[in-house]
């Protein structure tokens, strides 16, 4: 929740304007709800997992299915007066689908002896940068990209000519959890449930099912979006 909150804060969405959220995993989906709650005019969400698109749509998010578009940038511009959204939240990070080279490289890194693999991960910038590069492509000129997805490369190639030309603002970082607690906690403990957290978790499993829980979350199986482990149960 604080990660999604900070993602929206850092996106700096002017009241009534559009924000696009790349990736509708737990952070991305919660960011769509926070953006709606805080007055974004339009909230557009992009993913390729049907259950995730359905969940977002059921909460009033305009969704685009990556599987259905050959030219995502064009599809987004058509929705946003040709300019693109003024804010884009990248809630994908290193887990992105659809980048076979990056995926392959990660698998290779994971299989190398530790010191070598560490060096590669830290210095070669083996990363799946597709989502971040797409965010730069999609954002309106002069707009803001807020990165909540975690990227791990230390020397990741970035399209600086395009970033400079478009006058892109970019903010990122781990959530400063305590900074946002004062704003978030009343929404979780007060009347109603404005962010829909009561039914946000898709799975609540006892601790002994944790290996299974990791597997379904990683493989995006069984509709897994948010999995809670509850050691006292089961």
């Amino acid at each position: 929740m604080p990660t999604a909150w900070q993602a929206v804060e850092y996106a700096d969405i002017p009241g009534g304007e559009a924000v696009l959220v790349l990736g509708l995993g737990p952070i991305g989906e919660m960011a769509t709800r926070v953006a709606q709650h805080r007055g974004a005019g339009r909230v557009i969400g992009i993913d390729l997992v049907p259950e995730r698109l359905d969940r977002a749509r059921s909460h009033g998010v305009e969704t685009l299915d990556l599987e259905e578009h050959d030219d995502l940038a064009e599809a987004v511009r058509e929705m946003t007066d040709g300019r693109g959204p003024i804010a884009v939240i990248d809630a994908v990070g290193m887990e992105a689908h659809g980048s076979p080279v990056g995926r392959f490289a990660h698998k290779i890194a994971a299989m190398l002896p530790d010191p070598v693999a560490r060096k590669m991960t830290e210095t070669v910038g083996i990363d799946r940068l597709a989502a971040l590069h797409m965010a730069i492509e999609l954002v309106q000129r002069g707009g803001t990209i807020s990165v909540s997805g975690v990227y791990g490369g230390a020397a990741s190639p970035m399209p600086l000519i395009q970033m400079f030309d478009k006058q892109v603002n970019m903010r990122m970082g781990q959530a400063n959890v305590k900074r946002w607690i004062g704003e978030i906690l009343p929404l979780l403990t007060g009347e109603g449930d404005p962010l829909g957290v009561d039914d946000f978790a898709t799975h609540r499993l006892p601790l002994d099912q944790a290996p299974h829980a990791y597997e379904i979350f990683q493989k995006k199986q069984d509709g897994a979006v948010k999995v809670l482990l509850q050691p006292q149960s089961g």
Partner: protein
Amino acid sequence: MKALAWHGTHDVRVDTVPDPTIEQPTDAIVRVTSTGICGSDLHLYEVLGPFLDAGDILWHEPMGVVEEVGSEVTQIAPGDRVVVPFNVSCGYCYMCDKGLQSQCETTQVRERGTGAGLLGYTKLYGQGPGRSSRAPAGSSGAVRANQGAREST
């Protein structure tokens, strides 16, 4: 106690590990009632294996009940329901004063050049092997949630 431990890429297991103890006067021990699996746990599960050792315990989205607190912990007490932020932050340094708890100067992992320590997130972020439900810097870290807080996010 039981804890989820990393044993290799795509290999996590529920192990029996020693119970946590109060090591610093600012620690708290929390009986975890719910803990989320985060997308960043999948990085540990998959791509960050080189930074982990078998037996490293994974957890960083915990909610639970305080069992015991160190002598300097004043804002939470045994029996309180709490949520524990994954940033380990002191609450009084230059960065914490600016609301940048992720850069806390007291817990920065200087030997690795990284920011504030993160619960259950490998030696990259200050967690040695075997760390369990001991909440470092419990005096400034844990947030009392009390009744009515929802165990869902």
